[in-house]
C-alpha cells in the first residue's frame, strides 16, 4: 500500500472492492457459500475471504461442483486448502446425480452443461441463498453485463434483460425464500490482474497452471490432455507437448495451451502478450454458439 499522496494501486483498489463485497454478503445474507473449483479465480476469492474476515475464520462453507472429470492435481489442492483453512466442504456430485437419475450424460460425454441442475439441487438442499462465484466480466461478453450481485429466481435462472440497477457500492441482495443471489467479487478483475495478485500474494496454485510435459491430442484446434475421461479418438495422433492450463474446468472440455511458462512471472509475461482470450483458447464449452455462455447462465450456470 503506497500512502504517498493517499493513492492506492489498481490491485489494492480491486482487493478493497472485493473485500467490501464479501463483507456485505456476510452481513446481510444468512447462508452464503463460496463456489470453489480449484481454479485460480476461486483460489483468489478464497484468499480475499481470508483477508475480509481476519483474524476470524472464513464464515461460510465452500462448495465444489464435482463433474467426476477432475484433474488429480486440482482435487489434491482442493483437499489441502480445505484442511489448512478448516473449511466446511460441500461436494455437489455429478456422478451421484447421474446415478440417481437427476441428470443424464450428454451425447458428447462432456459434463459442463449437466453441472447446472446438480448445483441447483445442492443449493436447494443446503438452503444457500448467496453463492460467491469467481466469474469475471472480462471473460466473456455475456459476463460483461453481469452485476456484482446477480439475482436468481426460484429456478436459479438469470434474466439478463431484467437485472437490478447497481449504483455506487450499494448492493441489493434482497430476495424471497427460494430465490438467491450470485455474487461475483472479482467482476472488475482481468486475467492479468488475477495473475499479478497471485504473484504479489505468493498464492500457491495447482501445478497444471504452469508449464509441464503432457500427452495430448489436437482437436478443433485445441490441445486436450489424453486421460481416462478423454481418450484419443481413432485417427488422432497422441503426442507429448509442453503445455499449461489457462483455465481449469471439466477435464473433458478444458484444453491446454502450449507454453514454457513454468513460473508465475513467466505466466504474467505470457498472459500480457497473448492475443486470445482465456475461454476462447481453452474452453470447448464456449464454442457452441455466439450466445453459449448467455444460454447456460440463463439456466443457472455459474
Amino acid at each position, binding site marked *: 500500500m503506497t500512502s504517498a499522496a493517499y493513492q492506492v494501486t*489498481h490491485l489494492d483498489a480491486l482487493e478493497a472492492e472485493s473485500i467490501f463485497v464479501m463483507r456485505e454478503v456476510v*452481513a446481510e445474507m444468512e447462508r452464503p457459500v463460496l463456489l470453489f473449483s480449484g481454479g485460480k479465480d476461486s483460489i483468489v476469492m478464497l484468499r480475499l475471504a481470508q483477508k475480509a474476515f481476519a*483474524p476470524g475464520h472464513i464464515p461460510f462453507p465452500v462448495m465444489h461442483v464435482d463433474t467426476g472429470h477432475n484433474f488429480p492435481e486440482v482435487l489434491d489442492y482442493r483437499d489441502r486448502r480445505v484442511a489448512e483453512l478448516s473449511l466446511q466442504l460441500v461436494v455437489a456430485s455429478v456422478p451421484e446425480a447421474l446415478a440417481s437419475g437427476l441428470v443424464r450424460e450428454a451425447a458428447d460425454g462432456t459434463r459442463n452443461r449437466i453441472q447446472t441442475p446438480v448445483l441447483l439441487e445442492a443449493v436447494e438442499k443446503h438452503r444457500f441463498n448467496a453463492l460467491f462465484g469467481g466469474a469475471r*466480466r472480462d471473460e466473456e461478453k455475456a459476463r460483461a*453485463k453481469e452485476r456484482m450481485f446477480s439475482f436468481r429466481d426460484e429456478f436459479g435462472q438469470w434474466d439478463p*434483460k431484467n437485472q437490478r440497477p447497481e*449504483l455506487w*457500492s450499494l448492493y441489493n441482495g434482497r430476495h424471497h425464500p427460494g430465490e438467491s443471489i450470485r455474487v461475483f467479487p472479482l467482476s472488475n478483475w*482481468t486475467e492479468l490482474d488475477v495473475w499479478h495478485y497471485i504473484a504479489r500474494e505468493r498464492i500457491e496454485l495447482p501445478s497444471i497452471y504452469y508449464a509441464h510435459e503432457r500427452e495430448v491430442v489436437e482437436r478443433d484446434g485445441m490441445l486436450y490432455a489424453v486421460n481416462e475421461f478423454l481418450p484419443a479418438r481413432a485417427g488422432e495422433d497422441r503426442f507429448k507437448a509442453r503445455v499449461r492450463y489457462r483455465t481449469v474446468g471439466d477435464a473433458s472440455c478444458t484444453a491446454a495451451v502450449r507454453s514454457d511458462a513454468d513460473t508465475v512471472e513467466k505466466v504474467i509475461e505470457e498472459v500480457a502478450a497473448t492475443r486470445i482470450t482465456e475461454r476462447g483458447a481453452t474452453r470447448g464449452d464456449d464454442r457452441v454458439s455466439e450466445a453459449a455462455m448467455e444460454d447456460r447462465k440463463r439456466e443457472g450456470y455459474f
Partner: protein
Amino acid sequence: MSTETLAAAPVAEGRPMDLLRFATAGSVDDGKSTLIGRLLYDTKSLFTDQLAAVEAVSAARGDEYTNLALLTDGLRAEREQGITIDVAYRYFATPRRKFIIADTPGHIQYTRNMVTGASTADLALILVDARKGLVEQSRRHAFLCSLLRVPHLVLCVNKMDLVDFSQEVFDRIADEFTAFAAKLDVPDLTVVPISALRGDNIVSRSENMQWYEGPALLHHLERVHIASDRNLVDVRFPVQYVIRPQSTTVTDYRGYAGQVASGVLKPGDEVMVLPSGFTSRIAAVETADGPVAEAFPPMSVTVRLENEIDISRGDMICRPNNAPAVAQDIEAMVCWMDETRPLQVGGKYSIKHTTRAARAIVRGLHYRLDINSLHRDESASELGLNEIGRVRLRTTIPLLADEYRRNRTTGGFIIIDEATNRTVGAGMIVETP
C-alpha cells in the same frame, strides 16, 4: 484499424498503476462503439478471437465494415436488435493505469443505465458527431453527469475526418458545449477533436489537426488527476461488519470492518460513533496483512477502538467536530428506475444508505425535471421510469448523511420496492438539516 499499439503489460516496478473508472455515453451513430473498440485495440486489450468472432458475425449480417458495436453488445437481444440495452463493462490497461469502462446506452429510455454507469465513474466521456454538433442527447448526458457529480467530463467531437478536420467546426461545438456546461456543476471539462474510425487524437496527436494543442484522448485519460477527487477531509467510516472471532486462539478481539468512505483515519485519532454519539480513540487500523499507519478511501480495513462501546452495522465512525447530519427528513434528487410502478407521494419503500437499511415514506414531490430542457414541472404528481425529480422523504430511523455534492458515498442511496425487492430508484441527498 491501425497496427499502432501500446504495451499493455502493467509495470511491476516504478510508478504503480492506479485505477480510473469512466463512463461513456452516446449512441452507435456517434461512433461510441468504434471509439471503445479503438481504445481496446490500440492498448492490445482486444483479442484476436473476439475480433474474429465479430468479423464473422458482421460479414454474415452483410455489414459493410466490421461492426465493433458487436463487441460491446453482449446479449443476444442486443445483437439482434442492434442496440445497447444495458451497461457493459470493458477493461483495458496501459503501463500507467487500469481502466474500467462502463459503456452505457445513450437513448432517453435508458437514462437509468447511464445514471448507473455514472454513479461510480471518475470521468465521463460524451461523444458528439462533428457534422451534427450538439444535440438534445448531448445536453442530457452532460446534465446527468453533473447530477451524479462525475468529477471529470470529456467531450469528444468525433468524425472530424468528415468535416475536413475543420477547426471552425470544432470551436463552434466546443464553445457551445462549454457555455452549456457552465450552467451545470461541471468541475473539469476537456474537449478533444477525434476520429475514432481513423485513430486521430486517440493514442497520439493527430497530424491532421495541427491547430489542436491539447492532448490526445488516451494521454488525457492516463494523466487526468483523480487523487484529489476523493474527500480526504471528512472522516466517514460506515461500519459494515463487526469482526468478533469465536476462537480459542484469538480472544477478546472486536474490530469494526468497513471501507473508508472519506477522510483519513489514524491510530490515536479521537472519533465519535453515530447515532449513539459516544466518543473514543482509534486503537489500531488493521488489515489482514497487519496494522496500517492510516486508512483512506477506498481502503477496506478494520478499525479497533480504545473503549468497548456498542457499535453495530449501519453505525458511522466520524470525528466529534466533523460529523454527518443525523436526519430523518431527507431532501433528495431521485431518478426513478421502475417500469412497473411510478414513485408517488405517500409511497413506502425500503432504502439502503451506506451500510444502513431503513424504511421511508415519500412525503412530497417538489417538482419533476425535464432532463432535456431542465424545466421544473411543479404540478407533477409522480415520477415514472427514467424521470428525475426533487423528493422529500421521511425515514423510520435517522440516516447518517452528507449532501451528495460533498460526499458521493454518504450522500447517495437506493430505493427498493418492498414487494418485489427490486432496486427502483437512486437518490442523491441535496439538503440535510
